[in-house]
């Protein structure tokens, strides 16, 4: 059996005396038992405690409490009747719905104030009701008055509108037209004056623009003010504002009242007999029920939606019901083995993964619900009043905001990014190949083993291809960086003219979609292509770039240098322009040569700022499928060295493409994908760890 505390606490740690004398007695005894060392006395005290609990019904406090509860019940029943009567009477008087509601609430509160005032000292519940009613009786009259007055004014205005309906404001229109014209005239003159100022060179272009916009605004404002001289127009405007006021201001006023009441919720503790938060355990399997028992009904509804999701979607799906083909999570193990002919292992796998994610979401809902109920219950035992919907809503919109707005992103990431990646990861442990397209089985780590040992279809060429991939990545990216950086330095020289021209031209390789340029390069170096002919005419040699592994590789690196330098150029130019000139001036004073300045100032600064992007350039080229595949399809082919699948300029990503798309060795492709992804992840992780922001914890 749990123990009672002598004092009650609210959520900021203030303490309150117990009002429930019966519980107070128990609490005092509990404290005595705790402090008592002598076992005999302890057991005696315990006996005494049991006695008290047994005689609970005869406890004087409990008797008076029961009496109060009975009376309260009667009072509330009576009030309900009176309330309906009052409400109907108001309805007969044709009061507006809003006003009717407020008035009824006031009526109720007045009655409650009367009733509860007697019992304030008896229980905290009564005190809370009393104070709530008190607040209502203070604030509601003002709100009602505001509403009544507002509505009256609105009605008058509306009546006036009806009256004015047939009024023709001919004179005003004429006057307005005249006024507008005169104003236009003034505007024109002013504009001319400013333009003249600009022509004389007295003000800058920016100043001219600003002055002109200001003039236009002024002109509009004056017209708007003039418009209001029309009775009809101003009356209409008045109606609009009043309506808005009645809607919004009323809402705000009620909100303020609600916030004041919430304040009391925080300050007046609850007192309950329960000592163990057993609701949370009992209702663990039905999220929402516990919230209901805690009397948080809207929260309950929200969690019940979660319950529906769990029992109608997540669990059935995970068990295999409602699947397209698979068997839920079990499908992950069986992979459609022994299933029908049309059953496909890959579908079983994906449905298994989806079921897994759904289950994780379900577990999340269980956990959140349990934690929520548990916390509320524990707090109630301590004395903290469970928050009502008004407060919960505020909490959700404050603390839950980032979660709520990230939800769409999370869903997309889970189902579009994570599920496929998970599939690829699992595929790498299977034997999905041309012979096992429809049905495949788990084969453990053998794909990885083959790759690492350099055996079999995947392994034999893997290390060769990896070697070329690394060379390609380093050479092509570095070349692009060097070209781009050098050009940016040259163009940025203050004596060079036509900077804009160079910058525009140098932007082109980046701006033209890469697949177009790559394919066109490919066309140009084909036999009979423009470049091939030029080389032939210049050197007299008949070179067939596409049939020579070394030449293809060199051409690829040069082409990527051409393509990639543009981006680096733009990037570096941006950084160069931001370097303050006084650094160079200071260097000049100290007698630095041009080379010194580049080496000591420019390079470090540019590198520092662009390093992360340069790193992504390397990872980009590592996976630069387009360049390789479009230029020569990974060729030329060399079956003796590379087998039947890969060509001599294939990099890993294009090899994976050929494995999965062209030859249906999905499992091996997946294993290689995982292999390089892991490598790239480690690479990125190290870069990320070393970044300034991560170290400073500023993420």
């Amino acid at each position, binding site marked *: 059996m749990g123990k009672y505390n002598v004092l009650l606490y609210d959520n900021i740690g203030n303490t309150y005396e117990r009002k429930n004398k019966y519980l107070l007695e128990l609490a005092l005894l509990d404290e005595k038992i705790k402090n008592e060392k002598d076992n005999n006395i302890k057991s005696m005290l315990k006996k005494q405690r049991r006695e008290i609990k047994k005689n609970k019904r005869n406890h004087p406090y409990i008797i008076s409490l029961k009496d109060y509860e009975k009376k309260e019940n009667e009072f509330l029943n009576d009030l309900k009747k009176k309330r309906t009567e009052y409400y109907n009477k108001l309805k007969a008087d044709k009061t507006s719905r809003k006003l009717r509601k407020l008035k009824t609430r006031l009526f109720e509160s007045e009655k409650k104030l009367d009733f509860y005032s007697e019992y304030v000292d008896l229980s905290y519940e009564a005190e809370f009701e009393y104070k709530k009613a008190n607040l209502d009786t203070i604030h509601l009259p003002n709100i009602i008055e505001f509403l009544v007055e507002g509505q009256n004014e609105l009605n008058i205005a509306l009546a006036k509108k009806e009256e004015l309906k047939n009024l023709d404001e001919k004179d005003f229109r004429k006057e307005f037209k005249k006024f507008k014209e005169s104003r236009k005239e003034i505007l024109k003159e002013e504009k001319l004056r400013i333009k003249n100022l600009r022509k004389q060179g007295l003000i800058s272009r920016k100043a001219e623009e600003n002055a002109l916009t200001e003039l236009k605004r002024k002109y509009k404002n004056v017209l708007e003010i003039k418009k209001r001289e029309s009775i009809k127009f101003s009356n209409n405007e008045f109606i609009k504002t009043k309506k808005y006021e009645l809607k919004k201001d009323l809402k705000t006023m009620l909100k303020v009242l609600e916030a004041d009441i919430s304040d009391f919720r925080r300050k007046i503790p609850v007192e309950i007999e329960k000592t163990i938060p057993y609701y949370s355990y009992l209702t663990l399997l039905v999220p929402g029920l516990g919230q209901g028992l805690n009397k948080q009904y809207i929260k309950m509804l929200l969690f019940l939606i979660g319950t529906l999701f769990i029992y109608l979607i997540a669990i059935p799906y995970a068990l295999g019901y409602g699947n397209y083909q698979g068997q839920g999570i079990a499908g992950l193990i069986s992979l459609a083995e022994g299933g029908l002919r049309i059953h496909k292992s890959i579908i079983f796998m994906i449905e298994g993964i989806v079921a897994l994610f759904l289950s994780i979401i379900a577990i999340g809902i269980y956990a959140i619900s349990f934690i929520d109920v548990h916390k509320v219950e524990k707090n109630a035992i301590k004395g903290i009043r469970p928050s009502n919907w008004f407060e919960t809503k505020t909490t959700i919109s404050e603390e839950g*905001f*980032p979660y709520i707005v990230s939800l769409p992103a999370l869903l997309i990431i889970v189902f579009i*990014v994570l599920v496929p990646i998970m599939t690829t990861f699992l595929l790498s442990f299977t034997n999905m190949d041309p012979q096992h397209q429809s049905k495949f089985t788990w084969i453990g780590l053998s794909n990885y083993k083959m790759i690492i040992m350099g055996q079999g279809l995947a392994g034999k060429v893997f290390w060769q291809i990896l070697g070329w991939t690394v060379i390609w990545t380093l050479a092509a990216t570095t070349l692009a960086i060097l070209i781009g950086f050098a050009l940016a330095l040259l163009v940025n020289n203050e*004596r060079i003219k036509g900077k804009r021209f160079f910058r525009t031209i140098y932007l082109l390789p980046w701006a033209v979609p890469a*697949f177009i340029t790559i394919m066109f*390069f490919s066309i140009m170096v084909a036999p009979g292509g423009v470049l091939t002919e030029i080389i032939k005419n210049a050197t007299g040699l008949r070179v067939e770039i596409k049939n020579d592994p070394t030449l293809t590789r060199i051409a690829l690196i040069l082409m990527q240098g051409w393509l990639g330098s543009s981006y680096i150029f*733009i990037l570096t130019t941006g950084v160069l322009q931001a370097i303050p000139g006084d650094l160079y001036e200071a260097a000049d004073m100290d007698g630095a040569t041009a080379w010194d300045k580049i080496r000591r100032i420019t390079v470090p600064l540019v590198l520092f700022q662009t390093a992360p992007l340069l790193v992504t350039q390397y990872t980009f080229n590592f*996976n630069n499928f387009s360049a390789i595949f479009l230029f020569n399809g990974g060729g030329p082919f060399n079956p003796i060295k590379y087998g039947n699948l890969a060509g001599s300029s294939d990099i890993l990503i294009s090899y994976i493409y050929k494995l999965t798309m062209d030859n249906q060795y999905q499992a091996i492709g997946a294993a290689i994908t995982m292999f390089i992804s892991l490598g790239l992840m480690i690479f990125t992780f190290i870069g990320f760890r070393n970044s300034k922001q991560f170290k400073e914890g500023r*993420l």
Partner: protein
Amino acid sequence: MARKKENKEKLYLSDKPPLTLFGKIGIFLTYVVLFAWVYAIVWPLFQMFVSAFNGKQQQYIMANSNFEFSIRHFQYLFTETLYLTWVKNTLIIAGTTALLTLIVVSFTGYAYSRYRFKGRNASLMAIMLIQTIPTFAGITAYFTMHSIVSSIIPQFSRQMMLILIYTGGAIASNTFILKGYIDSVSTELDDAAKIDGCSNFNVYRLIIMPIARPMLTIIALWSFIGPFMDYLLAKVLLTSPKSYTLAAGLYTLVTDFRTMNQPAFAAGGLLTAIPIVILFIALQKQLVSGLTSGSVKG
């Protein structure tokens, strides 16, 4: 008086030191290098331009054919191929991708920049690492996922799948970029708005969105251009020529023997590239600022 004027003209007015002979040669060499590179860039593009308008070019672009101005390759493009359908498809896919990305990312960027919530750093790190895995890695799954979903919802086309994949791929990096941008906006603005009674959503809508508009424009632009540039996923996922995007469609003009027509490819490439190039040149500054602030992510 006249002499004085003459003197003034001869006067060396620049604040830079006068060039030595050595310096002059240096400048000259610089110009040589710069123009050489201009030539290196313009020449291939010019070749493409010429081939597109050369009526003498047949199915393959050959070096030794003469030039004869004609627009027949363009005519071929518009009449014999589905070029206009491809343009329409690409515009739809690109537009939807940009819109979806913008909506999703503007929220996450704001949330990650302004709130310190549970799981924030862990999820940031996770996204960061996951995005290093090439989108292509999931291709086997995409096929199957599409067939599962489309068996339940027949309207779910492969193009929609493509849109979702593009969006999914764009979320991570763009969240970082936008987060970096919003980080640079002082939180005092938010605080002031909150004191005046703005809810979180209103702070986002009324304060952050307008300030972040330049960056949002760039993000929208990038995600819009993406589908124009990517041909791999489009080619693999889309099966019928009617549903192709530009990239996938043009690709068939150089690889498929039945539809092989290289000059038409050059013409189509030209038509595709020109609007994008104009866009890039016009928005050069903004695009670059987008790049560098992306670098802040570290």
